[in-house]
């Protein structure tokens, strides 16, 4: 690769306020670079308070024009933050943006080191590495690719629904993939929502219907994404549409099959294990779509070979016992992941007795219990199905804020528990005790709601519940569940006998969230929440261009926040679609044909099938549209015939020499 005849390099060292300057002697770094790297082409070295500010950028632009710079090194924050900024500044001054190199002396130096002189020396070495590297930069042109206007939304809960509707309303095609038989997510299971206490179904179902009937939405329920290929703008997605065993074009959703099905099964998903459904079922009456699914594992016909009651009674012959899974392939430009959360399994806290003591309920169980459409028609009763409790304990922070389980706050449990207190009070008149560590009632109208529940006479006891037992110590405890807790405000251990306990279980990532992250090529925290690109400034994007996240998949949050994220992700996608094309980093590999010996070592290394072998010419070729720029083939080529732009051998080798300050030694070291 040919280099410009003479390198004229500008070095810019940022103070970042005191973020860098507080540890690194930035003036010294700049002076050193100007003096010691002059023979390597450094024409000017400056330091400035905030290089990323418009004044800082103008400084660089001015130098490029006036000093005829052809290369720029900016020593500041991580390139993941401001590389774009400085490349744009270069471009504004007429320099190819790829002639800029960033050196991270904040994340890699000032923020992680305390010894000022060691930090300053390291910053110098890193600037030196950047200068050596930039000498080998060549002007590049970004690859632009068109953006496919369709979008995939994974997960049909409230966040996914919101995203899908925003994009569809803007006139673009959306595919919504949901693995359950109906969209609606957890919100469809609730009776009331805090703090307004409006009916969950009343506000959710109209949105579900909109998704189901929207001309721009293709709804794929009982389906899962199996494979994602491609990159931003051009994803190719493989979806498995599981066999419903129902012909959707014939089914009218009349429900006769469910009525006639003789097999009753405990519904672990929608009814949270508290109610029953049939082997052919729609999870709830307002399900979207209206088509039922057959639960093959529990269907009598698949078990014993006879029954087919549903088929006999179906008025439109829509039952199809031989239906097979379908594999669909869709092309989309962007993807929104709104895969939601799982409820913490309270059986793991054996001292809380869930699963052992019948009248200990999980929060989702209680949601179903209090739901007018639930197994008890909204009657709050004990596990016997009839007794109305006279006293109820509600336990906050179950499995949350606890190093033995999940060490984070699940955000929604305080408000949810306060809502439960209200519902219990309203439905049963029982005495209600809420056990909390801290009441977290942030956000609009939440604390007001807490005040209202206090007014209703709920007893708030500050203390993390230690155990729930059915072993009485005194007569008044006979036949009760005893909640043992330290009332930390009274400073005494208390044993409070109640009829019913509700555990406000926390939220946790989907059990398969890590596997899903792998399918989509995004990152997860150690817990399994999806990681956003920036925790404050880019909360719905991911490190992977074209893939966005919304709702609880990113971390615990309530309905308003999920909806806001769903809409935000949609806005980001619409922005991309409007751009019509996207510029890709021109980091690509290419083969220098006359150096290629045709050994084919690289041929098997590319997972994107970008490398092919031209039998006629006995050389290897790389398709730049398929190449993702990882550079594995570049590293493998024994003849050095593959060039990786942006990360060439010359660039990396020079950077190493620079980092080791071999350029400072007498000139003979680097000829």
């Amino acid at each position, binding site marked *: 690769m040919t280099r410009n005849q003479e390198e004229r390099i500008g070095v810019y060292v940022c103070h970042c306020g005191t973020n860098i300057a507080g540890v690194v002697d930035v003036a010294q770094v700049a002076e050193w670079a100007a003096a010691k790297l002059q023979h390597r082409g450094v024409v000017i070295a400056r330091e400035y308070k905030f290089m990323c500010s418009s004044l800082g950028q103008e400084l660089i632009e001015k130098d490029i024009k006036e000093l005829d710079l052809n290369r720029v090194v900016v020593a500041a924050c*991580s*390139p*993941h933050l401001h590389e774009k900024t400085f490349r744009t500044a270069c471009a504004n001054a007429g320099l190819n943006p790829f002639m800029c190199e960033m050196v*991270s002396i*904040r*994340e*890699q*130096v000032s*923020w*992680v*080191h*305390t*010894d000022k002189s*060691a*930090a300053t*020396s*390291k910053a110098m*070495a*890193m600037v030196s*590495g950047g200068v050596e590297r930039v000498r080998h930069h060549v002007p590049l042109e970004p690859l632009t690719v068109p953006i496919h206007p369709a979008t995939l939304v994974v997960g049909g809960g409230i966040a996914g629904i919101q995203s899908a509707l925003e994009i569809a309303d803007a006139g673009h095609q959306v595919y919504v993939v949901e693995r359950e038989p109906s969209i609606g997510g957890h919100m469809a299971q609730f009776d009331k929502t805090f703090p307004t206490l409006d009916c969950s179904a009343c506000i959710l179902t109209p949105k579900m219907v909109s998704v189901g009937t929207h001309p721009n939405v293709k709804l794929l329920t009982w389906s899962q994404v199996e494979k994602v290929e491609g990159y931003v703008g051009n994803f190719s997605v493989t979806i498995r549409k599981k066999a419903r065993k129902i012909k959707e074009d014939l089914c009218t959703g009349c429900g006769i099959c469910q009525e006639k099905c003789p097999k009753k099964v405990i519904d672990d998903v929608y009814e949270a294990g508290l109610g029953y459904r049939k082997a052919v079922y729609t999870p709830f009456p307002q399900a979207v779509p209206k088509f039922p699914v057959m639960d093959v594992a529990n269907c009598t016909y698949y078990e014993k070979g006879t029954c087919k009651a549903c088929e006999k009674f179906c008025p439109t012959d829509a039952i199809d016992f031989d239906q097979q899974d379908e594999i669909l392939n869709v092309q989309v430009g962007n993807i929104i992941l709104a895969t939601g959360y799982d409820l913490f399994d309270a059986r793991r806290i054996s001292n809380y007795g869930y699963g052992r003591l019948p009248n200990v309920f999980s929060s989702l169980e209680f949601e179903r219990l209090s739901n007018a459409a639930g197994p008890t028609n909204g009657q709050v009763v004990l596990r016997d199905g009839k007794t109305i409790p006279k006293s109820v304990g509600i336990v906050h922070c179950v499995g949350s804020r606890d190093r033995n389980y999940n060490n984070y706050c699940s955000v929604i449990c305080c408000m949810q528990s306060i809502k439960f207190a209200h519902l219990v009070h309203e439905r049963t008149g029982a005495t209600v005790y809420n056990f909390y560590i801290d009441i977290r009632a942030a956000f609009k109208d939440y604390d007001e709601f807490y005040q209202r529940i206090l007014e209703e006479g709920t007893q708030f006891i500050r203390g993390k519940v230690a155990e729930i037992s059915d072993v009485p110590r005194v007569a008044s405890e006979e036949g009760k569940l005893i909640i043992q807790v330290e009332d930390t405000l009274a400073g005494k251990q208390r044993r409070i006998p109640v009829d019913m306990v509700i555990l406000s279980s926390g939220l946790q990532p989907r059990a398969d969230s890590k596997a899903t992250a*792998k399918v989509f*090529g995004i*990152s*997860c*925290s*150690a817990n399994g929440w999806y*990681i956003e690109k920036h925790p404050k400034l880019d909360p719905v994007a991911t*490190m*992977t261009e074209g893939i966005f996240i919304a709702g609880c998949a990113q971390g615990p949050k309530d309905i308003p926040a999920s909806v806001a994220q769903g809409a935000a992700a949609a806005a980001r996608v619409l922005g991309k679609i409007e751009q019509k094309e996207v510029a890709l980093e021109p*980091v690509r590999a290419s083969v220098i044909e006359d150096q290629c010996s045709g050994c*084919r*070592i*690289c*041929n*098997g*290394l590319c*997972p*994107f099938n970008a490398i092919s072998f031209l039998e006629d010419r006995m050389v290897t070729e790389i398709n730049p549209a398929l190449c*993702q*720029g*990882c*550079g*594995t083939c*570049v*590293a*493998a080529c*024994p003849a*050095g015939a593959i060039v*990786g732009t*942006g*990360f060439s*051998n010359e660039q*990396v*080798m020079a*950077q*190493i*020499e620079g*980092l*080791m300050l*071999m350029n400072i030694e007498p000139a003979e070291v680097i000829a």
Partner: protein
Amino acid sequence: MTDAFEPTIIGFTCNWCSYRAADLAGTARIKYPANVRLVRLMCSGRLDPTFVFKALASGADGVMITGCHPGECHYLEQNYKALRRFQLMQRTLKGLGLESGRIKLLWASAAEGARFASEVAAFVEEIRALGPLHWGRADASEAVGAEVAEGPRLQEVSA
């Protein structure tokens, strides 16, 4: 003399996981020793073994190779190739009569800033214990360093 020995370590990071782990260590202000200087690559699969020998020949006392966890590679599986090359490089180092502990392989996800920092700190101590390498410096055999750095490229064992 080894009392005050401050090793110099070159670290190679991939753009997607380990570089971001280093970023996260910074954002979270987790301290680690200043002995390591990082080179960003797009993928640990880009790591040409000559880079490692070049670093050692240029005066580095140790080299740290980092990438995404197995199965989490942004480029699907290229970090497995890095693993293969790492084993090859360890053998080569032994063959040259050097401690294979001079090079270290670390998988770090973008969420593992704290782990990245503690592993760097641990490696600095390991290299400190091994002492200076003196390879490619005036007092050592310059020929060896030069030969390795410029010499025939290491071949991929198998695709």
